[in-house]
């Protein structure tokens, strides 16, 4: 790697930071990609254990964090990106900064935006690619789900021949990417106690990709995921290699999992609640194994990892506990609703809806979320954000008693009101979209209640 391109790119990052422009999280990568298009692959090729990419509509940040913990637990020196810097330029910047800070790094691990993944994979030539799920999300930005499935299939065709795929057997669209000629590790949930009574309204990939018939489910776990099969026998959920055979939900506090893997059983008790996090943990275990991390330390490392920024993060404020549960699309929001319902107490909820670019300008998705099970359990609901009134209408037409509904578009005032409503010692569940989460976190940071920015410790 010739030094001038790297030096120039790093200088651009310092300059950007010096000018106070967004911490320089993607500018050095942009400069590098421009000056030397092959540089990213060259940097990654120097890493003894190469690069791993993790992508999904939901859960990629948490899974990347858990996988990072597993690799670091085994003594690996790892280069990783932070949530939000998951487009090509962000990944390139993280790699550039990482190589400078950790010249002896063993591997790189990046969470990657699902639409950006094909280009990132082409540039980076990864050794491991982890594909977790595809749900309906921000149609104004990502387009139809079917397009992403096709783009991912094209990406897999172009991967290095020795790359390992880690695929979710329970998502019919992701499982369809299985290619018998490639090294593949399939993961899934195999605990019959998890089953939902029926497919939720927001289920997406529910047809046989061969014949178009509606899939039949022996078990639905999250959204359209579960134990699925075509009624005419064309396609069925493949048997996973990494299977969570026991998933115990410990209320809104966490999980206890027993996972059967080709390298033996792994037990983990992560402080992350809900079935969707059981998928994240199982995916992380499969990812770590595919990367070559020894099995024996993975369970403890995953169990010790703290929640990622805004994704199950707990913050104390005025004697109450806020639990931040990012909810940015129907499938994700349905899981946060399901998780919150694990708390037996009357619920104090703060739901925040913004419509900026990172949230999606189109807010119609809230009508695809099944909020209805909350209605009988809500002590007080505050809706906030730029589109707070859309949320208010969503709950009005769900049949909510308007006396328990407060509409306060201003994030900070809404947060204070929701906290004041809750008795001291109670929990307030916060379900924000992405930029609303950033806004509320900023307030919490200013008040000294939350850490300034997620940095992997």
């Amino acid at each position, binding site marked *: 790697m010739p030094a001038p391109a790297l030096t120039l790119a790093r200088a651009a990052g310092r300059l950007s930071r010096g000018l106070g422009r967004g911490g320089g999280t993607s500018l050095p990568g942009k400069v590098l990609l421009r000056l030397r298009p092959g540089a990213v692959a060259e940097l990654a090729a120097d890493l003894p254990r190469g690069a791993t990419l993790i992508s999904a509509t939901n859960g990629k940040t948490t899974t990347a964090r858990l996988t990072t913990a597993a690799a670091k637990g085994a003594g690996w020196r790892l280069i990783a990106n932070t949530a939000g810097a998951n487009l090509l330029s962000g990944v390139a910047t993280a790699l550039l900064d990482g190589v400078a800070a950790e010249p002896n790094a063993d591997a790189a691990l990046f969470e990657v935006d699902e639409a950006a993944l094909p280009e990132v994979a082409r540039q980076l030539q990864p050794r491991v690619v982890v594909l977790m799920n595809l749900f309906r999300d921000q*149609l104004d930005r990502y*387009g139809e789900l079917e397009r992403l499935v096709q783009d991912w299939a094209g990406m897999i065709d172009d991967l290095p021949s020795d790359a390992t795929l880690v695929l979710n057997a329970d998502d019919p669209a992701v499982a369809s990417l299985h290619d018998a000629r490639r090294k593949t590790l399939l993961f899934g949930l195999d605990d019959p106690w998890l089953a939902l009574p029926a497919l939720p*309204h927001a289920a997406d990939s529910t047809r046989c990709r061969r014949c*178009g018939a509606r899939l039949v489910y022996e078990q639905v776990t999250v959204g359209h995921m579960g134990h699925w099969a075509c009624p005419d026998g064309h396609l069925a959920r493949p048997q996973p290699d990494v299977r969570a055979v026991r998933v115990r939900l410990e209320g809104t506090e966490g999980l206890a999992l027993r996972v059967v893997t080709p390298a033996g059983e792994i037990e983990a008790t992560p402080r992350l609640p809900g079935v969707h996090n059981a998928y994240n943990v199982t995916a992380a275990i499969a990812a770590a194994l595919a990367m070559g991390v020894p099995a024996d330390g993975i369970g403890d490392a995953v169990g010790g990892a703290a929640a990622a920024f805004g994704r199950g993060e707990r913050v104390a404020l005025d004697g109450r506990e806020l639990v931040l549960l990012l909810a940015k699309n129907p499938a994700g929001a349905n899981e946060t609703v399901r998780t919150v319902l694990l708390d037996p107490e009357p619920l104090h909820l703060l739901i925040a809806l913004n419509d900026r670019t990172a949230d999606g300008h189109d807010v119609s998705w809230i009508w695809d979320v099944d909020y209805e099970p909350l209605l009988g359990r809500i002590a007080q609901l505050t809706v906030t954000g730029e589109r707070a*009134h859309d949320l208010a209408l969503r709950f009005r037409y769900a049949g909510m008693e308007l006396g328990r509904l407060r*509409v306060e578009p201003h994030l900070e005032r809404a947060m204070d009101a929701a906290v004041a409503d809750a008795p001291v010692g109670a929990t307030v569940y916060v379900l924000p979209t992405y930029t609303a989460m950033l806004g509320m976190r900023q307030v919490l940071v200013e008040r000294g209640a939350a850490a300034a920015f997620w940095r992997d410790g």
Partner: protein
Amino acid sequence: MSVVRLGHLYPDEMNIYADRGNIAVLDARLRWRDHGLAVDALEPGDRLEPGQHDLFYLGGGQDRDQAIVARDLVATKAAGLRASVEGGAAVLCVCGGYQLAGHGYTAVDGSRMPGLGLLDLDTVAGPTRLIGDLVIEAELDGERHRVVGFENHAGRTRLGPGARPLGTVLSGHGNNDHDGGEGAVAGRVVGTYLHGPLLPKNPWLADVILAWALEHRTGSRLDLPPLDDELERAAHEVAVGRPTRR
């Protein structure tokens, strides 16, 4: 008290823009006035009997589902729908459903998807998608109101002489990003690219359609008493302000 019968066309295939919000609004606004809504899902293969339904709803779907639906519409439902409309039933179709209510849709590759022919219009895919907030000035039943929502479509729709636009674009793209028209109306058939979903923030439009459906059910025009629409008005105002504030 009357129960409006709604034929919900392809609820499993044509629901990409949270179309169930529109159904929830129709249902609630009837219940709040001591009427009711009975919803029949009309799936692929189902035939429909003219006269049974007072109102039909057709939403938008993914391209692949929409192609399946187009074939089924023409094969099993077009005749029944046309007879229903001639008998005074109302139809609301949104986005992809709006395109299917016309004569047909020509894709980028030149392939042609047939339509129902309920509205005199034709749609041709354009080179880009028209995406964003959309505000129009609409006219129905002699009243003019602002209607607000979101659009996301590749199709450019042009109206023939048998339909008039639902409204004129105040902000956004509308039918074809060219002639300033949005949506289409012919009798009691209303089509539009507006979702968001359409009806929660535009209760006036919901009530016009409900009045038509009730008239079809009862044979006489009923007065719909006003509801407390304070939240609806507030949400409408916020949405109207979005295009310029972003």
